[in-house]
């Protein structure tokens, strides 16, 4: 029986056991593992021999019965839980070595192998996909590449001093990377939907402020360049419930989206009715904009693409 509030998990006990090297494994933890070993990812992440040993150790533990009772909805298709390159890249990371990485571009073109060091392996819950953050030592730039675009990753032995030097350069680039701020206001008539709105923003760095007098909630968001597109997707997702009140870049992008969307439907914004030349111009220029580019960049430039006429991210900094 799974019961997550078990006294064996109590902090009073774990703090006493802290320095003894003693730890306890309960059958509910083993049951959970047993369930996970059934997932196709297990065979990709673990050696067959390891799986066999783990199965043997969990023989006496029940399998949590979730079928029929639990259903998951509206998720991205789970395309990739473990990627075959994950193990290799982790071992380069663990040993603090360099690598030569050959990648394809998004359009399928094969690039020349590039030297560098891996920085971090990251999984996106939205894309259901792995990314490698790495430092290209030839171009001295930070890269962000989908594992499915990496053709080969070859370890290159490297003196510790050289590794530290490159790693320091990479850290410096990361620290210098711009952070953006924006404030999103919950339109008051939608205050009742606050928890839903907060849930939508809960995967970002944020702070919520409540103005008692105006009975208004404001969400202060902080994000980096590559997260900007996903913030935009969430804003469009919530639609008229929220409004960007600070952050010129997001405001401009939202304005563009609304105008272009209206042009698609052959409708125009209220403010632009009449023989407004700008309105007609938008209709002519209407086409899909680049809004869905969540985490897309795999080039050195991790800034989201800017549509024409927008203020650019820099104005939000």
């Amino acid at each position, binding site marked *: 029986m799974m019961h997550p*509030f078990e006294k064996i998990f*109590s902090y009073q006990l774990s703090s006493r056991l802290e320095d003894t090297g003693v730890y306890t494994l309960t059958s509910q933890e083993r049951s959970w593992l047993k369930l996970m070993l059934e997932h196709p990812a297990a065979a990709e992440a673990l050696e067959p021999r390891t799986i066999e040993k783990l199965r043997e150790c969990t023989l006496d533990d029940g399998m*949590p019965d979730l079928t029929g009772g639990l259903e998951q909805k509206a998720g991205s298709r789970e395309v990739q839980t473990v990627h075959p390159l994950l193990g290799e890249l982790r071992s380069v990371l663990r040993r603090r070595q360099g690598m030569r990485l050959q990648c394809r571009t998004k359009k399928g073109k094969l690039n020349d192998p590039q030297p560098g060091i891996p920085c971090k392996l990251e999984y996106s819950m939205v894309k259901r996909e792995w990314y490698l953050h790495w430092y290209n030592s030839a171009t001295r730039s930070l890269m962000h590449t989908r594992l499915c675009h990496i053709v080969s990753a070859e370890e290159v032995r490297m003196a510790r001093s050289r590794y530290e030097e490159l790693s320091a350069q990479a850290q410096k680039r990361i620290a210098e990377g711009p952070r953006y701020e924006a404030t999103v206001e919950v339109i008051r008539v939608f205050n009742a939907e606050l928890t839903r709105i907060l849930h939508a923003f*809960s995967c970002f760095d944020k702070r919520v402020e409540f103005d008692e007098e105006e009975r208004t909630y404001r969400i202060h968001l902080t994000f980096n360049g590559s997260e900007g597109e996903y913030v935009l*997707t969430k804003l469009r997702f919530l639609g008229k419930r929220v409004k960007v009140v600070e952050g010129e870049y997001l405001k401009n992008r939202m304005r563009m989206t609304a105008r272009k969307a209206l042009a698609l439907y052959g409708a125009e914004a209220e403010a632009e009715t009449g023989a407004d030349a700008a309105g007609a111009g938008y209709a002519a220029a209407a086409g899909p904009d680049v809004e869905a580019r969540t985490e897309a960049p795999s080039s050195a430039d991790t800034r989201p693409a800017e549509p024409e006429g927008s203020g650019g991210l820099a104005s939000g900094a």
Partner: protein
Amino acid sequence: MAKESFDKEIQFLRLLALTGGGYDRQQFAGRLGISVHTFDKTVRRLREVSGDADFADLFRYGYADSAEPVLLFLYRAKSMKESESRRLPLLLTSLKGNPQTAAELMDACCEQLPPDAVMPDEKTIRSDLRYLEEIGVVRREPGGRPYRYILNNDLTDCLSRKELIDLYEFVDIMANTQIPSVQGYLLRDNLKKALKAAVPEEEWDDGLLEPFSYKYHYDARILDEAHLYTLLRTIRLRTRISFQYFSPKKRKSYAAKDTNPLFGREGEARRESTLPLKVVYDHQYGRWYLIGAAPKGRFVKFRMEGMVDIAEEQQVPEPYFTLKKADLDERMRFSWLIDTGETVTVRARFYRPANGQADFIEERVRLQGQWGEIVEETPESFVYEIKVNGITEIRPWLRGFGSSCEVLEPAELRQSFIDEWKEIADYYDASV
């Protein structure tokens, strides 16, 4: 001892996690429907459990986005008697790699406890062993009486160092990407200790403990796993439940019980009752729902975060449950989330990116569009079609594509998009 309830802590942590600690004490207490005094008491208690962390900082998403589940400490909040919290570590330490009888354990315990502590009798030790055996932490060695017990760490003991690292990384990935995850996170914490013991100090690297990071993750989802197993159990047993329900649309999310005169003025929420049929996890918002059967063939949906004080009621006959469950499964076949309303066909045209960019639009539609299909394709655009219950639940997803998506049908949805984009355009045009 009365069963300890963590409802208050859960509500509290959820609010903290969702707001990033931005409310002041008064606002916080007000929203939780508790007094500032209770608020302070809860903070003190949770601080103790979490190791005195600064709460506001804890809930800001760090730039280094660590994979450490900050809310896991909720599950470490179960309290223990002081004497027990001294005795159990001694027992567990003695049982590591060394089979012992209850009598031997009692001696070991008495030897190591400080002289002023209450010495346990053999009955207490036996009951401790029974508990530890029941939860699978210790195992009885083969052989007759007196029984000998040993700490059951086979899972980690049988692995080489390389295998242990592989296992740790596997558990890290699965706990962070799969549902449910609480037990995975607890296991991960224990494997950390196994790793520390297996890797020699001179080779130790903290990077071993955080091999990966995870982006766009709903932290607060693990809070609702507190009720998950209770509900799954009642589904399995075909048992009705009653509970206090705080609709998320109400301002207060938790009302203190009026057993304490201090909080007597707080209004009690209505007690609901239902026959649980299914738990649904919504990946779009990271939220959980319970769907139950109500009289007259209706289905009722509850947000799990609003459910507190769940009590099991009477069982229903198996045929009744089976009928209801089959009916629900049928009615939910076309639910984008949980809508069991009328099925409509939604058609939308998606525009591919211009300027020769890779087609991330189609990629995203295929990834997130559930059972919908692409029925028409041109070099510039494609038409996506889906049969879905109602238009409410799919609407935000379609809107998320901005001007890359044009709703074609039904007309009502198309018109509502036009109206909404007009409103949004007004928000921003007015602010120029």
